[in-house]
């Protein structure tokens, strides 16, 4: 498989009054052409910061990409200048945001907002941009696209707005689509529609997708590979079957256990993960998940386990073999 986008040892920090927040701590992954990478993790684990760094949209200051490389089409995005980065945003790498209610400009018509990327990046005239915008609205399943072109965002429902956002993102045929929790603000039926839509579009235009979510159900539906993040570290990486069938990190295990199951006993309580994620300013020594982990051995308190291969294409960051409970 060809790697389209490769993130190597990315570290992102934020300087705050209380100290340096280590938001992303040495994250590496590869996005393959035409595949979907799911990034899972609870709030504040660095998912959004990771993808915002790919777009170079971390506010600097207070943020800073401390180290690492983001290789896209043979170039390191971190070293790119402002204008060359602007040419990549929207054209090569596009992004869909979590809340379609706030990510559309309330005072501009959706037609204008969708055609904007086209006018910025492609050398086309207004009527051509209009036609392509209508085509995009059709593509994402907005009925009567011609009538809706001049409508404002408040005239659309939440699901429709997310479709509009996707149309905006797809306008220049990007090779990577980053979706930052695109279904979190939507109800389940609309969520399913958006996931279905993205899968269809992906097979039609052949782009890669980075899909961020904390909903494991959505990941199972859409992802080819899955990265599980915790406190700015990748703790497990595998293809989607292995994550669900054969999880090897205690955190992934706990996440899966805390999902409600169709076949569970009716009065069974949902499993929870005790405690809260660590403070990213004062990181504990050792494994960041150690305080909440039920498999702790002495080594966990001393040294942070790096990500290591345990099988072909299956990586984990844990000192323990969760099947036996003994050191791996």
């Amino acid at each position: 498989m060809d790697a389209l986008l490769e993130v190597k040892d990315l570290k992102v920090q934020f300087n705050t009054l209380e100290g340096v927040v280590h938001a992303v701590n040495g994250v590496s992954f590869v996005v393959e052409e035409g595949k979907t990478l799911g990034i899972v993790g609870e709030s504040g684990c660095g998912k959004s910061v990771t993808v915002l760094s790919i777009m170079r949209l971390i506010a600097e200051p207070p943020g800073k990409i401390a180290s690492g490389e983001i290789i896209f089409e043979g170039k390191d995005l971190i070293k790119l200048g402002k204008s060359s980065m602007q040419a990549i945003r929207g054209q090569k790498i596009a992004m869909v945001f979590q809340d379609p209610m706030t990510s559309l400009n309330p005072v501009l018509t959706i037609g204008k907002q969708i055609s904007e990327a086209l006018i910025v990046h492609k050398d086309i005239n207004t009527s051509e941009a209009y036609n392509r915008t209508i085509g995009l609205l059709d593509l994402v399943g907005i009925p009567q696209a011609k009538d809706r072109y001049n409508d404002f965002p408040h005239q659309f429902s939440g699901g429709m707005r997310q479709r509009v956002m996707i149309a905006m993102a797809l306008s220049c045929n990007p090779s990577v689509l980053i979706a930052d929790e695109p279904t979190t603000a939507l109800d389940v039926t609309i969520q399913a529609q958006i996931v279905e839509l993205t899968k269809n579009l992906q097979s039609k235009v052949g782009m890669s997708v980075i899909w961020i979510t904390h909903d494991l159900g959505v990941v199972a539906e859409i992802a080819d590979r899955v990265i599980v993040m915790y406190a700015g570290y990748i703790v497990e990486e595998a293809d989607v079957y292995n994550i669900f069938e054969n999880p090897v990190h205690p955190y992934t295990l706990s996440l899966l256990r805390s999902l409600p199951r169709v076949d569970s006993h009716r009065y069974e309580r949902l499993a929870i993960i005790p405690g809260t994620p660590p403070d990213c300013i004062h990181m504990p020594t050792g494994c960041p998940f150690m305080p909440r982990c039920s498999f702790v051995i002495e080594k966990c308190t001393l040294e942070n386990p790096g990500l290591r291969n345990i099988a072909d294409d299956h990586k984990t960051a844990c000192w323990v073999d969760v099947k036996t409970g003994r050191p791996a």
Partner: protein
Amino acid sequence: METSAPIIEKPVIAEIEKPPLLLSQLVFLRFKRHKMAVAGVIVLILMVLYSIGGTFFKSEAFSLVTDTSIRLNAPSSIHPFGTDAVGRDILARTIYGGQISLMIGMIAMILEVIVGVLIGALAGYYGGILDSLLMRFTEAMLNIPQIPLLLVLGKLLADKIQPIVLLGREFSGSVIVIIAVIGLTSWMGLARIVRANFLSLREQEFVTAARCTGTNNLSIIFDHILPNTMAPIIVSATLSVANAIISEAYVSFLGVGVMPPTATWGNMLNGAYNYIETAPWLWIFPGSLIVLTVLSINFIGDGLRDALDPRALTQAE
């Protein structure tokens, strides 16, 4: 047995699918309910008609003719508003003076909006050092009292600038000075409003989304953020027209504003205080025109503020 099918009245589809109101329609509807503002619009239109339409009845030359034999004549059929201390026709002078007064208000407002929006937008969007510099500059400007500045500059520069010809009329150079000084000393409030709105709007997700599509900063500032803060700008601009007219009247009344023979409503009052009781038509006509214009602009501003308030959106029927 045969039963006739019950007649169901079908609703007219066009009525159900009535498209939602555009923002401009909504604003118009709400503005219409503000009676005083509507009255203000009517009065203001009459004022514009008066000062432009009047030119078809009285020539400008007529407004400049001095004839001391008819000085301080009371209103009559030949001079409906009477004559002033050097025998000029007051009706003709209010017509041509109105043009200047309204023009000063409009152009000073445009200047103010350009400077205020530019400074506020740049400071609010970029923040940091640029914000500090521009806001300290704004505060420094706020410390300069406008009226004394107008008086001093009016006195200093008035006769240094050559008269200019515009739209077939010759204006005294002092008009330019007054417009520039009023425009350049009244943008600070607007700049602060715009900056405050930009500070909160730039953090909105749609700005990040715009950045994600590769839009450059200038386009984000003017195409994406600025339309979101149009309401306070429109209201502030409207009110500043009234302020500019008042300021002009004020300094012209003191005799250092727009220099005669060019008439403005303000400088027609200059000298009228000598005849407050003996020749009241000297101040009644230009004075009431100023009051009417400024009042109606202020009512329009109030109406616009209510009509453009997004929180009032739901109240419109």
